[in-house]
């Protein structure tokens, strides 16, 4: 499913019909189609959220984007350079870490940044200072990475991605394993990099709140297939409902159906979730319910709408897995 893929910006990362089939022994279940005909586009300036449950194929896709894994078919282009044809030019525009950032523990944080930057053409001392400043590692850069905490390693991973300054930042689960403080720091850093530095960020995560707070576009992947792609604002407009807490859910549901033509599903503890509609606003619903003598304890936009959308779409794949290709996304041409 694609929701408003129109975008005025310039395409920076394009994945077209990416497929990866891993060969396995017959007694291990035969070939595994980890990614299946996947297409999406991240535009310059986007913070692109790449969502999917564990085993959906997110890391395999990211590895194909970065040239670590060769696609069975399909192509990836970064800034107009295809990975298959001109891998080095494509990767010159990217700073990335996959899964967890890895460093040489016996070297200092600064030395790690310095030597990794050599592989990308080198970075000046001032650039290294800037990356350390951005990631809040100033003052700790001369300590060996072996003594760094998990959060510091994550931040060092982002610092390494920034050297030399890339166009596109690919971050795979950057807040994985962090405590709430660490998560908040990384989120603030991503906001700064996208806002102040104008970087395009491709963020893989299964933390939906994180994606909702940070991203302007998302793609949801399940079992290697693209389930949903679009601008977050448009998805919110289409899928975010209203949560109604009332002691008379049956009466409220009937009123909403008869008066506004809205479908209402029962939620937890005498609440209803009302499907969204462009033509009806919350105040009109509230007025109608009160007029009908139905007590309204709470009426507010749905909070966990992205989680619901994610769970609905990813779980529904299980039951429809063997059916026809109805869940296959229709891609842009």
């Amino acid at each position: 499913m694609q929701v408003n893929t129109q975008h005025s910006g310039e395409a920076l990362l394009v994945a077209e019909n990416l497929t990866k089939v891993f060969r396995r022994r017959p007694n291990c279940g035969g070939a595994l189609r980890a990614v299946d005909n996947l297409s999406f586009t991240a535009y310059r300036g986007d913070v692109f959220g790449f969502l999917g449950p564990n085993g959906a194929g997110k890391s395999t896709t990211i590895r194909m984007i970065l040239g670590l894994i060769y696609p069975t078919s399909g192509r990836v282009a970064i800034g107009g350079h295809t990975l298959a044809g001109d891998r080095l030019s494509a990767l010159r525009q990217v700073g990335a870490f996959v899964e967890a950032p890895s460093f040489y523990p016996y070297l200092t944080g600064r030395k790690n940044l310095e030597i990794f930057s050599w592989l990308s053409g080198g970075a000046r001392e001032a650039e290294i200072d800037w990356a350390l400043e951005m990631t809040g590692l100033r003052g700790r850069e001369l300590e060996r990475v072996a003594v760094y905490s998990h959060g510091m390693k994550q931040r060092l991973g982002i610092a390494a991605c920034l050297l030399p300054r890339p166009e596109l930042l690919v971050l795979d689960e950057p807040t994985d394993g962090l405590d709430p403080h660490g998560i908040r720091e990384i989120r603030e850093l991503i906001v700064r990099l996208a806002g102040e530095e104008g970087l395009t960020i491709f963020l893989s995560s299964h933390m939906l709140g994180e994606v909702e707070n940070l991203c302007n576009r998302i793609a949801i992947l399940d079992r290697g297939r693209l389930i949903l792609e679009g601008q977050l604002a448009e998805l919110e407009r289409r899928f975010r409902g209203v949560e109604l807490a009332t002691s008379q859910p049956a009466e409220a549901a009937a009123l909403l159906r008869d008066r506004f033509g809205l479908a209402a599903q029962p939620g937890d503890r005498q609440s209803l979730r009302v499907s969204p509609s462009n033509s009806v606003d919350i105040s009109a619903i509230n007025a109608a319910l009160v007029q009908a003598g139905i007590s309204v304890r709470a009426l507010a936009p749905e909070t966990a709408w992205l989680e619901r959308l994610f769970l609905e779409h990813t779980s529904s794949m299980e039951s429809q897995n063997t059916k026809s290709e109805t869940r296959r996304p229709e891609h842009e041409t």
Partner: protein
Amino acid sequence: MKPEMFLSLRAVLRFEWVKLRGRSITWVPFLMLTIIVALIVTVCHHVQFIHAKALFARFQVIFRRKEEFVNGYHMTAHAMNPIFQLLVPIFITVASGLMVAGEAEQGTLRACLVRPVSRRRLLLGKFIILAGYALAISCFAIVLLAGLGVLNFGTGNLYTLNIFFSNGQEGVSTVPAAEVPLRLVMAWLLATAGMMVLAALALLISSLVESTAMAYVVTLSIYLSFLTLHSFPFLEWLRPYLFVTHMLRWQQCFYSYVKTGEIYVSLVHLAGYLTAFLAAAVLLFEQRDIKS
């Protein structure tokens, strides 16, 4: 080679060198060699080469005085055998295993490969640094052996029992004292060439597997199996086809007369093995999916 490629290779070499230098395990072979050579010198002092005298006597080579055959060169040449057949290959295998499989296991290999550096150049850079490391270890071993040997036991003609030096012939070879330093340099260079082939083989194995332990086990198993075949008396016809035969050609530097023809043939073989192992390593590494 384009200037950009050259710059990039230089960057890879700097990168690999800083990593190698910073790793404490890099320096362990030098410490081990120092300990072992010191032990050899101590033992030689203690036993006064009695065993060697008996061996020479067995081959009906009678020296009037022990000093005629016991000297620093004698100790160096005979100690090179176990050091270059077993110890240095283990050090090289460990270093190369850490360079690819070790990095794959640690996750730093993917951190390198998401950067704009070609896999071929990265592997080539690793091999060049590894070759330099092999050269340094071999040089250190020989300088230490010869240095401590000469300091403790002096110089003199080098008498070696041929049976210990890979040609299977009985008897004693004699190298005049003045020629020995040159022979040692030749032996060092030839032994290093052999170690480079082993380094290329180890890189090939390391490129195929994602576990460091597996890389060590497979490489050493191949090397030791070939060494066993080489040492087996009834398989002499097989020897020219074994890469270890050519790796051990440095031993001929301690014969009375150096068979230069055989050494050239071995050098050609070693170059062939090196190219084949390295080309296979690059080919496999370029095509491999990095899943670790």
